[in-house]
């Protein structure tokens, strides 16, 4: 049986997300409750969460969450980290042992800053420096895997049902303005924690329900720009695509949606001349980044969450609002479980992004 990354494993899943636009902290318990009710959409072979705003006391430092197969992997990685970063705090990640989660690797957490001398030497901007270091650890250090690397945010994932994963990581002890969650239903046994979702790079996290048929076309294009799709998962390639379009090409979220869930040519032809020119240009320039196949994704990054369906809407997604809180999930029950009577509840159209941002005040507070 081949490991994740050696073989491509299609899967169906469940996703859920909560966002408080005013920056108020939501307990991790809430998101666990939401994904728990969609238990049957998973098969216990992977679950994970991403929380934003959870490390306010270290909000200017990068929080690395790392899996180690053994101590020697940890030692080698810490040697690497010490050469490139200033390690402000390190510890085992707090967990609660439960019989439902087994075979856990060593899980450590570091709060770091890139060494200024190293940054100056490399002539790179800070985020590029960090992302390259993370990719280097993941591809070159055997038995070591950085699964979270953003500021004031963290990914928590394992092999197991998501609600059990939430219990394992003691998510009720964390509070953040944004949470996303994922439960996995893969068709093989991956057996490896790194393969669960969300996938993250810097502070971009993606939880994804679907299977993209354009995977290899997307992968073989994005790998030209320094990314290596080692996990062979859809989520990994989508995250790299978003990182490339947002961080490197500096497209905004609407423009990104126009690339990855581009409108049909027949729709573009009917747009106003200005929009038509823009959509045609973006779709043509990044033709190989069009994502085809059923997908329903929740993208999180600093201060923002975006929900997007493929343009044929082949996966379910429901969005709801109550006051400053926005809820997104694969099923309405997951929303109603944590918010019994939302002000508004609807299913977004295929290909149309739903973008939720922190309001001005909250941005000052949390970022």
């Amino acid at each position, binding site marked *: 049986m081949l490991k994740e990354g050696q073989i491509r494993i299609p899967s169906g899943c469940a996703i859920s997300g909560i966002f408080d636009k005013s920056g108020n902290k939501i307990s991790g318990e809430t998101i666990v409750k939401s994904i728990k009710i969609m238990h049957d959409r998973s098969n216990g072979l992977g679950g994970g969460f991403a929380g934003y705003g959870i490390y306010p006391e270290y909000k200017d430092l990068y929080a690395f969450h790392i899996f180690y197969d053994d101590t020697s992997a940890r030692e080698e990685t810490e040697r690497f980290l010490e050469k490139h970063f200033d390690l402000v705090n390190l510890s085992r990640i707090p967990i609660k042992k439960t019989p439902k989660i087994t075979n856990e690797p060593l899980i450590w957490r570091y709060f770091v800053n890139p060494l200024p001398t190293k940054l100056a030497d490399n002539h790179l901007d800070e985020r590029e420096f960090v992302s390259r270091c993370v990719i280097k650890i993941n591809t070159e250090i055997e038995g070591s895997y950085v699964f979270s690397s953003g500021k004031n945010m963290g990914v928590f994932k394992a092999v197991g049902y998501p609600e059990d994963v939430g219990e394992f990581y003691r998510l009720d002890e964390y509070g953040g303005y944004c949470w996303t969650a994922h439960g996995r239903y893969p068709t093989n046994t991956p057996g490896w924690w790194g393969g669960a979702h969300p996938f993250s790079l810097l502070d971009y996290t993606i939880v994804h329900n679907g*299977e993209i*048929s354009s995977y290899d076309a997307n992968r073989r294009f994005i790998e030209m720009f320094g990314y290596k799709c080692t996990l062979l998962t859809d989520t990994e390639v989508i995250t790299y695509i978003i990182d490339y379009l947002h961080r490197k090409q500096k497209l905004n979220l609407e423009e990104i949606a126009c690339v990855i869930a581009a409108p049909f*040519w027949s729709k573009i032809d009917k747009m106003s001349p200005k929009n038509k020119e*823009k959509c045609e240009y973006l779709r043509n320039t990044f033709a*190989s980044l069009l994502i085809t196949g059923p997908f329903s994704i929740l993208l999180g990054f600093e201060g923002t969450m975006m929900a997007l369906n493929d343009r044929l809407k082949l996966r379910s997604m429901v969005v709801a609002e109550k006051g400053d809180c926005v809820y997104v999930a694969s099923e309405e029950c997951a929303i109603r479980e944590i918010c019994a009577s939302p002000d508004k509840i609807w299913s977004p159209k295929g290909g149309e992004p739903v973008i939720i941002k922190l309001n001005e005040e909250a941005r000052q507070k949390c970022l």
Partner: protein
Amino acid sequence: MPINYIFPDYEVIRDKERCVKCLACVRQCANEVHSYDDKLDIMKACNSKCVNCHRCVSLCPTSALKIIKTDETFKINANWNNAAISDIYRQASSGGVLLSSMGNPEPYPIYWDKILINASQVTNPPIDPLREPMETKVYLGKKDSKIQRDEKGNIKYSKNPNIKLSVPIMFSAMSYGSISKNAHEALARAATELGILYNTGEGGLHEDFYQYGANTIVQVASGRFGVYKDYLEAGAAVEIKMGQGAKPGIGGHLPGTKIVGDISKTRMIPEGSDAISPAPHHDIYSIEDLRQLVFSLKEATDYKKPVIVKIAAVHNVAAIASGIARSGADIIAIDGFRGGTGAAPTRIRDNVGIPIELALAAVDTRLREEGIRNDVSIVVGGSVRNSADIVKAIALGADAVYIATSALLAMGCHLCRNCHSGKCNWGIATQRPELVKRLNPNIAYKRLVNLITAWEHEIKEMLGGMGINSIEALKGNRLMLRGVGLNEKELSILGISHAGE
């Protein structure tokens, strides 16, 4: 002389019960195979002149004719087969280079037929092309590598010209001179109706076809026939022909007897002079010279038209393609060893060049490894025979395909491979007016439209079956392919897994 005798390859079998002596076969065979003896009231046939073009067979109102492969043979010899022996006789007699037409007919492996396509099931639904939009539009040309914005934050659009195709298929280069004016008219009109492009080939652009310029690729070949300012302005793109799959490394030769009237005028050379296309362009001896020509053409056309560089698929095609991508070209066209031709030396056609499937996979992989795949589009040709070949080509990494033999077949060609005689009975590879008449462009262009339309529907069905609704999601998507009966090396070069994996 007995020593020169080569028995005819084909025999004309006439069913005397069925023949009504309408004499259509006598009137229509340009090779003068059939004749009627009115004194004896019998029909006669001269087998040695028959080229198996099926003109008489298709026209016969009572289906009285049949052309069969002769069963006359030398002693059976797996090494010295009939063709090998007859070729020696021919050359001993003529002292000349053996000439052939159309593509390599030898039994080399056809990789298209060893590649299988995926379909979506259960985990990912297939899409129904009759109910959902299925997009086959492609843009060929250079794409921007960095998004630029102006002071207001609006995106600055690309200066790189792209050509738009409704389906990823174009008609490949066939020169006016190798094929007839009526054939060109059919190709031009079909390309216009379909929203794709056709290629002038190296014979220049006839003045009657400037009206189809928006759907024309004008070719600049080593002989530079017909190349002048208006010619370059007329087309939607300019193609520099560095090589051709059927005859890599050599040029071409149209004898002076064929350079008359419109041919001479369109090629802009005097009547009766031989039209020799030299092997190299005599101003391109290296990659930097090619870059010069690419930019000269761009200057001459005000940077408004993409420049295509067409090469034959040879051993180091990946490195060559990488060089071309960096030379400023917008599109690379690769022609595999099965590509067709009006006339080429037999030994070169049958032994030089490599299969397009392997060339395509190698070039696509190499350009991606170097991070420059989005700087050029790749178009491939050299025996694309049906819509499945097209789907496989795109999955291996092509942006679009070039078809030529398929187009000729749609127009009536029967692949008798006698084009070099100039007596094409179907009016395609000939300039004789009484033969050219036989290709009625009103019929031929409709057949081309039918063929491409049919293929478009089949492509949509296959895309939908794979769970894809846009052709760009198939480009380079090698996971959609599996090989059968291929060895490790072939699978590795093609970049696909074996069926079952």
